[in-house]
């Protein structure tokens, strides 16, 4: 048993397959993967991705304007206020420190963020948090409030894994139903993080999945806030999602089963998550060819 969706080999294979599907070319090695992915997603979104690093912008930048025009993250951008130069410099510094912090906690979670997060829009919104969407791969929106470096880092990993799950869904197909169907009451499941609330099945799955590396990061830092907060709700969410197994493809069922098995551990085995993230043992996933 592993947790494929956290495994850097599995994530990298999915990215390589997406690159080939979009460009006809295979990345030749690991260093070529990031630039090739950025070229591929530049053809899928209105603004291109730069060759490396995280490009930052703010409430008056092109990404914010695009999202407002397209009514994406409406409640976030509708509530934004102007950010001045010193604020933006502080945000830039915090994002850079957060990326370094992620690498220090887990080199391969850091690599995941390096591969998947290309642009971050930082804003002052009415509440604090982050966002990403399947139609804009690489883009993360962030309203940090008075966060410190660990919270910036958790947001980058949180949203980075969301974007990774979107890639895995495009490459391997996770659900038998479209998102619109999963909004219906009969396809909702418990959220691991909005405790006690039912969410559309794909959102519930994403919420549970991203809770795992966040708990892991805090465990690595010697903090147990999220572990204490989410252990029971993650288990409940997994059990509820398993009642909806029919809505997952075989690949999606595999991911759900793996996460569910780990979530039932008492206590949660974070040493195993370390292995799940970085072991090459789970490379070589061969997808079924679907037409």
């Amino acid at each position, binding site marked *: 048993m592993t947790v494929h969706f956290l495994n850097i080999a599995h994530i990298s294979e999915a990215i390589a397959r997406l690159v080939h*599907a979009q460009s006809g070319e295979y990345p030749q*090695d690991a260093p070529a993967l990031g630039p090739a992915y950025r070229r591929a997603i530049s053809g899928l979104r209105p603004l291109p991705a730069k060759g490396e690093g995280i490009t930052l912008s703010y409430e008056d930048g092109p990404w914010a304007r695009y999202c407002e025009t397209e009514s994406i993250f409406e409640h*976030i951008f509708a509530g934004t206020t102007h950010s001045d130069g010193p604020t933006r410099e502080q945000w830039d510094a915090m994002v850079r420190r957060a990326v370094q912090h992620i690498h220090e906690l887990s080199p391969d979670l850091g690599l995941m963020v390096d591969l998947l997060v290309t642009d971050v829009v930082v804003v002052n919104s009415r*509440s604090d948090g982050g966002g990403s*969407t399947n139609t804009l791969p690489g883009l993360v929106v962030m309203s940090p409030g008075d966060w410190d470096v660990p919270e910036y880092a958790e947001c980058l990993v949180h949203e980075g894994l969301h974007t990774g799950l979107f890639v895995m869904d495009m490459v391997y197909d996770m659900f038998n139903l*479209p998102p619109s169907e999963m909004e219906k009451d009969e396809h909702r499941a418990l959220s691991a993080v909005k405790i006690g609330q039912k969410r559309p099945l794909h959102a519930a799955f994403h919420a549970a999945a991203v809770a795992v590396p966040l708990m892991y990061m805090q465990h690595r830092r010697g903090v147990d806030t999220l572990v*204490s907060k989410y252990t029971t709700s993650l288990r409940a969410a997994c059990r509820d999602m398993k009642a909806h197994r029919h809505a997952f493809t075989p690949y999606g069922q595999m991911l759900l089963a793996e996460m569910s098995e780990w979530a039932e551990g008492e206590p949660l085995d974070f040493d195993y998550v370390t292995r799940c993230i970085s072991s090459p043992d789970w490379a070589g996933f061969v997808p079924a060819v679907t037409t």
Partner: protein
Amino acid sequence: MSTTMTPPPTVVGMSTDALSTIVAAVQGDPVSLAAGIRRRVEQSRQGTHVQMMGGWTDNDA
């Protein structure tokens, strides 16, 4: 209030060489795989924006 615990030892990531071998190995994929990926990519672009948001006071994923 959180309980501070002793941080575990540092971890080592996968080597670049090992990951490169893994990345290169997907060149053995069946030719037909890419068509399914392109179809799903196009479906996601045509559909509504699936937004995942964490930490907001509402609309959390």
